[in-house]
């Protein structure tokens, strides 16, 4: 699973290349559309993002930025072949375009084509040297079992950017696998010092310490993860193991039991994720993935899955509502309101949505708006006691 966690980190790394690289002579209308598409993409309106880029292409079909953005949208939707085609168009328009080959490499990793990934990253490296790309090369070599090459790549990354935490972490992982735990701890400590709040890194450090026969020292690392990620099976399991080993069997068993429960959810998530990535056009797979993530309390990831599902079924009020609810749970009241209102603009008779909209307003202190929403809901369902009860709380 460590690899999967690191994969998530890599996907985040790809955001590095998300900024538009506008040419000086770009049509202002196209620039505006790119900005709008980027905004839509960032807010999870993937279909809108694609539609806007379509408009941009009609105006000016040879702007690489547009295709680059399309590549990123397709990647988000797990439509990797279309992403690849988009990036190839980018390179046909601008062979030096920064990030296109990097993102193609990342897509190749998702498709398990590691030699292709390495080739893409190396091409990127020649034109745009960066520690991040070197780390990706190292990662690909490591997955291919070419350890010397992987270690070299990580070391080069550190030489290039001594503050690249991922390079230290991955090099530490290599040392751990080769049996040099002392060296592994040394590198992971460096990585953690550079990114001290990174929960993935804390987990890795805890695991290393446990492996090194230091269960007591490992405890705070695992506890930091379990407190922030109550769904994190692995830290619960290892926390249980560590507690057992220091003689605290009751608490250890408690965490082992929790881990056992979480394991089912983790397995469910992985199953749905694999199926969804293999069949990205299957709506229910994304819905089920979102549901399983939501059940585990993995809000942001659940939202991401629902957003892909919504792109496949744009008129689904249920999905829009789920996403809005997750936005709310995540503290993003602005997005929640936008999405509730979007639903109501399509069907203003949905009482539950009025209710939810009122809750968002009320929770953000906008009582008048809340009142208006609940009153509106009562227009369609005058006997709704929940709405009445909520209204009462405003008085």
């Amino acid at each position, binding site marked *: 699973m460590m690899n999967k966690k690191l994969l998530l980190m890599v996907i985040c790394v790809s955001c590095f290349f998300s900024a538009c690289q506008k040419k000086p002579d770009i049509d202002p209308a196209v620039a505006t559309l790119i900005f709008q598409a980027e905004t839509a993409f960032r807010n999870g309106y993937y279909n809108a993002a694609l539609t806007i880029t379509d408009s941009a292409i009609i105006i000016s079909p040879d702007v690489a930025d547009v295709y680059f953005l399309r590549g990123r949208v397709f990647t988000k939707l797990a439509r990797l072949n279309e992403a690849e085609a988009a990036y190839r168009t980018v390179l046909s328009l601008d062979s030096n375009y920064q990030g296109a080959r990097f993102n193609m490499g990342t897509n190749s990793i998702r498709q*398990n084509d590691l030699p292709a990934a390495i080739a893409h990253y190396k091409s990127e490296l020649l034109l745009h040297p960066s520690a991040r790309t070197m780390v990706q090369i190292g990662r690909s070599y490591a997955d291919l079992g070419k350890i010397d090459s992987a270690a070299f790549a990580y070391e080069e990354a550190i030489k290039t950017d001594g503050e690249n935490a991922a390079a230290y972490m991955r090099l530490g992982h290599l040392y751990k*696998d*080769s049996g040099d735990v002392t060296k592994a701890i040394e590198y992971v400590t460096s990585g953690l010092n550079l990114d001290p709040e990174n929960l993935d890194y804390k987990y890795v450090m805890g695991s290393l310490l446990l492996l090194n026969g230091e269960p007591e020292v490992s405890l705070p690392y695992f506890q930091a993860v379990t407190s922030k990620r109550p769904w994190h099976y692995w830290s619960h399991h290892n926390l249980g193991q560590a507690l057992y080993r220091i003689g605290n069997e009751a608490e250890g068993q408690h965490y082992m039991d929790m881990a056992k429960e979480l394991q089912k959810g983790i397995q469910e998530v992985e199953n749905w994720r694999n199926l969804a990535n293999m069949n990205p056009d299957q709506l229910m797979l994304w819905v089920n993935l979102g549901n399983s993530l939501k059940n585990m309390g993995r809000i942001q990831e659940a939202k991401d899955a629902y957003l892909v599902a919504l792109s496949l079924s744009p008129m689904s009020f249920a999905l829009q509502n789920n996403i809005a609810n997750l936005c709310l749970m995540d503290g993003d009241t602005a997005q929640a309101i936008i999405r509730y209102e979007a639903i109501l603009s399509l069907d203003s008779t949905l009482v539950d949505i009025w209710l939810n909209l009122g809750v968002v307003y009320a929770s953000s202190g906008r009582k008048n708006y809340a009142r208006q929403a609940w009153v509106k809901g009562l227009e369609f369902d005058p006997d709704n006691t929940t709405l009445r009860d909520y209204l009462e709380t405003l008085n």
Partner: protein
Amino acid sequence: MSPYLAGKITVLFAVTIFISCENKQPVSTNKTQINFTDVTATAGLANFRHVTGAVGDKWFPESMGSGGGFIDYNGDGWSDILLVGGGVWPEKSAVFAPALFLYHNNQDGTFKNVTAAAGLADLHTYGFGITVADYDNDDDQDFFFTTIWQNHLFRNDGGTFTDVSLGSGLEKDLLWSTTAIFFDANQDGWVDLYVGSYVDWSPENDIWCTLDGNTKNYCTPELYNGVPSRFYRNNGDGTFTDKTEQAGFLPAPGKMLGATELDFNNDGWPDLAVASDTQRDLLYVNNGNGTFKEIGAVSGMAYDENGRARAGMGIDAGVVDNSGRETIFVGNFSKEMISVFRHQTGNYFEDRAALSKIGRPSLMTLTFGLFLFDAELDGDLDLFTANGHVQIGIEHTQDGIYYREPSHLFLNDGNGHFADIVPSIGGPLAQPIVGRGAAYSDYDKNGTLDILVTENNGPVHLFRNDNNENNFLRVNVKSIASARGGLGTKLVGITKNKRMVRRVKTGSSFMSHSEQTVTFGLGSEEVLDSLYVYWPNGSMEVFLNINSGQEINITEERGKWTVQ
């Protein structure tokens, strides 16, 4: 020079190094002279071929392969070879395939097929594993044979076998069975039987799986429900009684592929470690009365370092370092290291996969057969693994993974640190095969331990160990107060520099059976200074100053040894 140019030159240099690193070959500094020769053809085993019955349906059991191993069926002291032929699907083939093949050791390095003469030619089934023991205490080697349908117990009647399954109590299960192990769980002098079960599969519930999205390929076990293994108590009258639940073996996740006997807590009672495919591995600690408690998860040996269940296949356990504590080894799937867990204290084990230096070299291979033996007779237990993938054409969808894979031979430096010498010695162990079962025996009685490996839908391989520079002592034990074959007996051999702990047992590896004779590698020592024999009933005997280069017999309570 501008910073831009400087940066560019640096990058070009870096890429050049990456390319050169790709071609870098591992260099072994091991100076051992160990060498193996493939003697399959000259030994007379070339005509054997395991069959899967595959006709294109890609039914799950076809990817499993079968085991084999060594048995002294005629009691002449020479290891004969028993192989599982696999099987065909009755609804797909009008011609049946032989289920078993027995080869008689001619004592000159060759073997003769005696399957029919031994009474084993008429059985047609879809077979997987064998385990050998004297279940009826009549001083000969019987065996148990697992299949996808009914399992079979064969009683040895003076060199011919009688299928005594019906009425034995073992014939009722019609589940997919895999590895079985005989051991005397309650130490009543009669070996009991643990039979591993895999998944609930039948042609009717076969699932469509694919690697490329278009063509069907073999499934992995996650998609099927596991079936718990069973435990049978030997009644001492030729029959067995199912005591799975009473003995503490339920509940269990199923999908079991390997089992080995050990005594990690040194209480004198046999414990059991079980390898499970995509489920947690299990550790059954004996309660001191023949019942068990499963402590795998708590002990730390059930999962990898991230708490993830692996695809456990072959398994073995032994003392591999100076700690004196037992270490469990489990073969796993590709991209999963071989598991290495050393007993720490109490009921806890520590993960030593990486520290043992086995983890990384085993990461890309898929290990089935796996056993500990002293390959170069230096007194340390080494680790052999037979490897081979389950997905035909895996190399086309996963880089660095191959359907046919070379074996591993990890030599132990005596401190529990291992190095795979196959890349440096080459030879038959380096040949890519679809390895499955694996077993060892000194079939040619030169003191060195030879290797038998089965392939799925392919031949068997007999690899003769040509290392005969070091001295050895081989020991057969026969218990009187305990189960006759001496199963569960612990032997500790001591020389000036070594303390070697060995255990007489069945099971281990993957659906295969190795000889029960214990081999002590003595290196350059010409005498084993002390031999402690800890009999299963708790008694202990000591024998002093035994010359090397011989095979001896020790019978419980006789107080002396005799030359074989």
